[in-house]
């Protein structure tokens, strides 16, 4: 039996995505595209992570031409440490989006299988 992470599979997917380039600021749609998460799932995850101080957020400084300013996110130092630990404890490498769905199915199957 593997160690149960304090994070959901979706949160682990977001952490893995942000962990890949920890110094780089990412925007919401980019994370959603790379993880396969929908906006209604991604933003609650980002909000909770920001509330816990694991993710920092800011608006783009400059007004780019042809599009509105983006809201940007990256892991804090604490977030990076927590993500590293959580991802190391995760039962399998978190790959999104198929990994997220597959992991959910596996967890459900593990619960119902004696």
């Amino acid at each position, binding site marked *: 039996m593997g160690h149960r992470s304090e994070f959901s599979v979706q949160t682990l997917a977001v952490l893995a995505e942000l962990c890949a380039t920890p110094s780089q600021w990412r*925007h*919401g*749609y980019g994370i*959603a595209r790379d993880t396969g998460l*929908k*906006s*209604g*799932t*991604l*933003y*609650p995850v*980002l*909000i909770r992570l920001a509330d816990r101080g694991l993710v920092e*957020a800011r608006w783009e400084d400059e007004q780019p031409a042809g*599009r*509105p*300013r*983006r*809201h940007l996110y990256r892991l804090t130092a604490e977030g990076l440490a927590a993500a590293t630990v959580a991802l190391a404890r995760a039962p399998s490498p978190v790959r999104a989006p198929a990994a997220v769905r597959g992991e959910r199915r596996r967890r459900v199957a593990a619960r119902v299988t004696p």
Partner: protein
Amino acid sequence: MNWLSGVVAALLRCSSGMLPADRRGWMRALWTEAHEVPAGWRRLAWLLGGLRLTVREATRRRGLVYPLVFTAAAVTTAWSAWPGPPGDSAVAVNRADVITMAVLLAGLPWAIRRVRGPVAGGRPARLLRTGGYAAVLALVLVKAAVERVAGAPPNNFEGPARAWTGEVVFLGVMAGYAALILACSARRSPAAPGTVAIGAATGAALGVVAYVLGPLGFPLRFTGRWPACLYDAALALGALLALCAPALAGLAATRRVDHSRPPVARMRQGAMAGLWTGAAAALVVAVLSTASIALLPYDPGLRDWASSHIGQWTPVVSQWTPIYGPRGYLGYVAGNSAFAAGYLVVLALGPLFGVAMGAWSGWVAGHAGLSGIRPRALKQAQGRLG
């Protein structure tokens, strides 16, 4: 598809005001990110996810759930009561009714909050407020259904002036009910929670009994000897119960008051229990009976049953008049004086009768030494339990 995305985006922007200040930036972020998403289904799905998030974040704050539920219920009531041909006085009365009631029910909490404080913590207060508001809205809804037929030509033989007078009285009485519900579920309630619970439960049970004994507001007729005798006995018992219930509730509430409190405090709890008994009974029987009356024109079985069971009441039969429903239904319904006004009298006098009986029982119990939790007896009971 783009126009739909535009509508959802506009809705998202407007609804972000429902969120706490620290969440609005996130919603703005989601909204601006929508410009990056390819147009079409994917952008629409992105925006719909934002709406889902808005609802989730808004309802996470407990204080927003009840206003949202109330708004939905009020809009549904208005939507149901609104239809009707223009120029019909019954339709005008119904529309004025739902609008005024919605404004009253939405505005009264603010006024009561200033005097009695916010809603008390705990489930009973919330249950009382939600159940009370639901009953008031249900009464408005079924009354509108009755008025739509009984107050429309050619059944409005009493004229629009009388209908408007009755409407003003109805709104005044309903405002009183709403104020009572709000005040007794507030932190600085004039009645103890136990008093309200005893009164409301007794009153609700009494209302159901009254409805069963006379679903349309009149005693029933039974042809067989034994059924008629049994019904008469049940009716007599019901009348006795209606007379005694507020006093019994008042007595039960008075006995919960600490013996060291002055007699006035015990009498006040008795009066509040009686008030709640009368109010709850009147509200329950009015909602149930008016709903049955509202079904009369549309349910031939109920109409036949009503004709055969209350037909011997000659003064009532003479008030019956053919009705022509909005969709061509043909049936019979009693005049306003027999039904709507009858329940208005019950709604107005029920709480007054209850408060008088409850106060009397509280006064009698207080002076006869029947009431009050005696500290010594309480300590002995605690000792036995310990």
